[in-house]
């Protein structure tokens, strides 16, 4: 391990070597070339899929430009979220303040697009130049009679994970502000699915089949009015708990809505999610439906997976993703198709998450928090991984070193959730790992 940063020692462990816990939640070190983003990014990705709201980035152009249509979060209706709105602050605003510009921008956009709400994201310099974003939002809200919600997400004020919390707080101001929607007593809110490649629709279909209605999907295919009515659902079902658990906890405190943590990746986790929800409602009928659904799905899925498992048996994977729960699901899903995880890392896991991740990994697996290209590439060489699962920033690490890659981040166009997602996943892993091109790798 040449040239690794000494200060990051506690953030790298090998399972089975020594009895250390992996430490998570530390701020990134300057100059480490962290793969993490910022507070703004955390808020932006969580709120992004709300499709009938204006998402206005208050700041110079970069932050808006780099997040334009950044996620493959699909909408069944309006697509306002796929635009990149910015106040595009210039030097004169830095000197004289940007409040007037923000006010004018909000009024202009609301008049033009008639959104159901507006989210206003503060970027790094907004606080520094003294703009009172909250006050501007209040004024416009009064004028236009729609919720105008400040998202105080200055990039430097913590990590991406802090941004998740800020986004949850922003949504919490919406929850409970409307009672007009008809909501069934057997209904759930889906938290933490972002409808990438239409995944939410796959899940909604499963839930519907077992007899459970979706009150609000937060935020995949999200709508302002659904979120406003979300306090009337019976249960919050939380995936991607790093990003959404805070909202679930807030709703439990304020409205007494219980929550369950689930994951929809892999057969095991997907089935557990359905059983968990069925169990919650305490109706035998729901549980029977869930069992039938799982049985039915597995009847076709398992034989379909078989050829992939045979081809992939003994291959090794590196995982570096945003949150720890995704990593845990991936380890299990990979195991199901014969692939062993040899590197498991995340940007935002905490120490508790990592204990669980360590438990399910095999001995010899390298676990890493807030890693960087220098470390990840070195680990790939050390372990002889055949596959890397990550996001766009990890892709060139894999390809440069001549191994396969699967995108498990915002930009993927392939549904990986649910049973059909598992088959897609196996197919994608096979397509990349077993490609003949790697024979040309050095």
């Amino acid at each position, binding site marked *: 391990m040449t*040239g*690794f*940063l000494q200060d990051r020692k506690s953030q790298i462990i090998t399972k089975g070597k020594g009895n250390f816990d992996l430490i998570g939640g530390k*701020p*990134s*070190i*300057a*100059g*480490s*070339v*962290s793969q*993490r*983003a*910022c*507070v703004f990014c955390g808020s932006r990705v969580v709120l992004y899929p709300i499709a009938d709201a204006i998402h*206005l980035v208050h700041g*110079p*152009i*970069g*932050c808006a*430009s*780099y*997040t*334009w249509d950044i996620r493959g979060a699909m909408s069944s209706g309006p697509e306002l979220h*796929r*635009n*990149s*709105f*910015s106040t*595009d*602050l*210039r*030097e004169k*605003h*830095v000197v004289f303040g940007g409040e007037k510009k923000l006010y004018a*921008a909000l009024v*202009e*956009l609301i008049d033009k697009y008639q959104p159901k709400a507006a989210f206003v994201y503060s970027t*790094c*310099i907004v606080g*520094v130049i003294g703009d009172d974003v909250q006050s501007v939002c209040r004024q416009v809200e009064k004028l236009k009679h729609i919720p105008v919600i400040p998202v105080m997400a200055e*990039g*430097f*004020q*913590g*990590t991406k994970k802090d941004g998740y919390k800020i986004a949850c707080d922003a949504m919490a101001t919406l929850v409970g502000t409307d009672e007009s929607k008809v909501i069934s007593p057997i209904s759930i809110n889906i938290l933490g699915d972002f409808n990438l490649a239409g995944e939410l629709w796959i899940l909604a279909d499963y839930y519907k089949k077992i007899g459970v209605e979706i009150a609000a999907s937060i935020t995949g295919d999200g709508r302002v009015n659904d979120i406003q009515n979300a306090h009337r659902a019976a249960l919050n079902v939380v995936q991607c708990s790093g990003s959404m658990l805070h909202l679930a906890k807030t709703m439990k405190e304020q409205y007494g809505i219980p929550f369950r943590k689930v994951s929809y990746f892999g057969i095991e986790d997907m089935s557990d999610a359905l059983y968990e929800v069925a169990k919650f409602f305490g109706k035998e009928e729901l549980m029977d439906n869930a069992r039938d659904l799982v049985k039915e799905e597995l009847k076709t899925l398992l034989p379909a997976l078989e050829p992939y498992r045979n081809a992939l048996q003994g291959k090794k994977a590196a995982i570096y993703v945003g949150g720890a729960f995704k990593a845990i699901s991936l380890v299990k899903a990979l195991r199901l198709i014969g692939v062993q995880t040899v590197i498991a890392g995340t940007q935002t896991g905490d120490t508790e998450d990592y204990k669980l991740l360590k438990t399910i990994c095999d001995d010899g697996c390298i676990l890493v928090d807030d890693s960087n*290209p*220098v470390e990840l*590439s*070195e680990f790939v060489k050390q372990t002889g991984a055949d596959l890397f699962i990550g996001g*766009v*920033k990890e892709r*060139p690490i894999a*390809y*440069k*070193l001549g191994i396969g890659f699967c995108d498990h981040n915002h*930009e993927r166009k392939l549904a990986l959730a649910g049973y059909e997602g598992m088959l897609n996943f196996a197919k994608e892993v096979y397509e990349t790992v077993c490609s003949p091109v790697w024979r*040309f*790798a*050095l």
Partner: protein
Amino acid sequence: MNEMKEAASSCNACKQCAPLGACIAFKGIEGALPMLHGSQGCATYIRRYLISHFRETMDIASSNFSEETTIFGGNRNFNTGIDNIISQYHPQVIAIASTCLAETIGEDVQRLIYEYQATHEEVPEMVFASTPSYQGTHYEGFHEAVFATVKTLAKGKASDNPLSLHQLNLFCNLISPEDIRHLKEIAADFSLKTMIFPDYSDTLDGTSWDSYQRIPEGGTTIEAIENSPWAASSLELGYILNATLTQSAGEYLQNAFGVDNFRTGLPIGIRESDKFFAQLSALSGKVIPLKYQKQRGRLVDLYFDGHKYVSMKRAVIYGEEDLVVGLAAFAAETGIKPVLCATGGESGTLQQTLREVLGDLYSEEIIVGQGMTFEAMEAAIHDLDLQPDLFIGNSKGYYLARKLDIPIVRAGFPIHDRIGAQHNRLLGYEGTTILFEQIVNTLLEDKQRKSSVGYKYM
């Protein structure tokens, strides 16, 4: 059209922020590792954005501001950042660009560099470009970084090794790695010993690796930049370059060291390529090599073969200002009518430059839009009934072309929805040949697709 009604909000910008441009330029220095002085997100977003275009590793460090840094200043983070870059990357150069946050809180990066150098031994070279994102676009950031690098590294003392001296400084502008390689080939064919800067033709378009290259091989050598004051002349590609900068790299070398500075546009199309080749011929004292005369001849022949497919076609051309000038000059000489020339830049000189460069092919009907967003382009197309047949520009215009159900030919930066952006060729007779074929074939494909007949000859 320069007097467009200024909107308070921007929707779907046709520009990125200045530090991004600086990072691209810094990738063209051999042994350099860029660092952004600001929040972690800036480096990460810019890395992601650039990886989606170049599909190469993109290690860019951040000084990782926290709340404390923002209140008390970035001194400690700056030093830690530099320490950690050195221990992980052993760079020859640390190339630093500022962000809006660092500039707003008044960070004096030059002083931080000076203090670091004064208190440490064996420090790599450090270059600093001031690139607050509230000023200019990625295009200005790129040129600021080119200027800052030359100003810092061009030492002004004669090289000990006269053999290492070159004759020409070629400032190649924001172009694709493949186009950089083509310019190098052309300069070599004129037997001109040339420093091309920034040369990211290898660093941003490398081979497959056996092990991770923390700093990819390639780039303009420090020695070549140091020796730039001793070249006979500089040639800058682009008429507009950085309008917010008091002087460009070429102008700096001229003013400080008396290096003759010449400018041509980006050599796209026959007439602009002719100017470029004539300039190289004059600088080298050599006739244009037969190889390029033949390339020109084949291009003329191709124009003749293809002219009817493009004649009177109405094109929307957009991107960085000098790219727009080059593409419009090319389009006009093939019979394509540029109906909207749009840029996110705000030099204030785009229209005049277009008028001069297009000459008799300039039409007062061309709508020239500066400070444009894609939404503003859409409004202009609609309100002015421009009825375009074709988009030529970066991939961000795709959604609009799709909405209008017209084809798009991707050129410039960024190209996020296709493979091979690093090989996107525009320059010289050869690059123009590829571009022209692409445009004709795209139009033919569109015509075939929309035809009920399914012609086999087009």
